[in-house]
């Protein structure tokens, strides 16, 4: 029987994969994609918990999270465009003027 734990483990794995992506990718766009994975992992947990509790609050929250994530992507892409335009790169390693 598939239970809450299954979904949560899946969510945790997904979340971790997102994290690993953030750590290992150098392209800003890829990092943004990985962040989306993380949000999705959280969404999955929310929905699973919603089922566990038998209420809709979790699903409502997911609705908001999706919206916020979309907005986040918008902003992220805008900044990525600026990077590409001004610095001619999307590689985060190359964007490290500010340090120490």
């Amino acid at each position, binding site marked *: 029987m598939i239970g*809450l734990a299954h979904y*949560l483990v899946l*969510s945790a794995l997904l*979340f971790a994969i*997102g994290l690993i992506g*953030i750590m290992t990718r150098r392209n*800003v766009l890829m*990092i*943004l994609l990985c*962040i989306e994975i*993380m*949000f999705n*992992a*959280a969404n999955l*947990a*929310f929905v*699973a*918990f*919603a089922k*566990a*509790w038998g*209420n809709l*609050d*979790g699903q*409502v*929250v997911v609705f*908001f*999270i999706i919206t*916020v994530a979309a*907005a*986040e992507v918008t*902003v*992220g892409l*805008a*900044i*990525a465009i*600026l*990077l590409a335009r*001004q*610095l001619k790169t999307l590689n*985060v390693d190359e*964007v*490290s*003027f*500010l*340090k*120490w």
Partner: protein
Amino acid sequence: MTIPLPWLSVELFACAWILVLLAADLLLPEARKASLWLWTLAGLGICAILLAGQAIAGGHHLIQQMFLVDPFSRFFKALFLGTAAVVVVMTRPFGRHLAGRLGAFYLLLFTAVLGMLVLASVHDLLMLFLGLELLTFSLYIMAAYLRTEARSIEAGMKYLILGSLSSGFLVYGMALLYGFAGSTHFEAIRHAFEVGPVPPIAVAGLLLVMAGLGFKIAAVPFHLWVPDVYEGAPTPVVALLSVGSKTAGVVALTRLLFGAAPTMAGLWTNVLAGLSAATMLYGNLGAIPQTNIKRLLGYSSIGHAGYLLMGLSAGSQSGVEAVSFYLVAYFVSNLAVFLAVTWAGEQLGSDELEQYNGLSKRSPFLAAALFIGFLSLAGVPPLAGFVGKLFVMLRAVESGRLWLVAIGAVNVAISLYYYLMVIKRMYLDAPPTSTTFRLDRLATVTLSLLLLGVLWLGIVQEPLVRQILVSVRP
């Protein structure tokens, strides 16, 4: 289900005014847009009036289980409005960099204010998330707002990536807490914690949410964005980040911890104490070798986050009072410093500390303002920062964490060291050129008021303390 709109009047007006600003930005001819700062100020003013009205009416009002209008929130809302007003004043000299995009800037400033206003009243995880995101989005954009400057873009990028990461953890933590309590309302979560048992999942959820807020507050190790973003972002934005956003983070954290997990105090006070120690040490030690004033202020703001956490780690009502005082003191002192730095940056053409050499001869008022502001930040009487630090440490002693107080005390000396290094440049070193400059009248008045506040709070604390007592009392 009716919503008592009068208790939302401030936020509603802010929403309305955002639209007004949007319309104004779209409709006003380019030449007239310079006056948008006045519109913004006016909006903030009206918000303040509405807030005052609420304050006169008084009382606690929990709206839809997620939005708590109480004296505590009003107190900080006032602080946020004040912060935003000063930031508006700061954007005056800075505005010429933003030709054509000033309207959007003020609009974003207002959305950030809206986010902070919401954060002051949060009583629900979702609300917390949204308020935080609203604030943070505005700041992402504003940080990158100088779109021709690589530093600004880099700051925006780093802030965005790390901010999103922290949002991810926040959301995940929220999910875990929701899973634990079955609801995102603080009341429900508190109830669940009270009833127990408390599984690791709940603890993890709480800690992850704290981490998400720790990012806003700039607590070690979630602080790493701070120096870079402070250095790269436009100075007024940095001021907003350092005062507004940090305060909002602290307020939200207080709301969360005291509203949703008071029974878990044994856990989170220890976590906060540990974070506090690390944060103080990192911020103040890291500030020592800095050569850029904004970066230095970034590190210093990390240090201050440590003191704020120290106050919260007392886990008591009185600790929150101390933190509230500290925040007000930090508000006046840090904004005074940032206002001065904005002006100095405009006039000196750089934020490098070298440029500050001999500033006291080039602009005595500015130097004096920085002098007073820095000393207040360092915690020297008779200035506001001193009283804040004293209160915070007192509460930490009360909670029995002498080691933490000891670290805090050592950090007072360390922070004084790097502040004095800047003061040394301004007062002891020879200026590169002898040209002098002045502030415009608005900035002078604002700065003077802030400095007066710094002094006033340093000497006459009773009115504010009373106000805080009234506000914090549950």
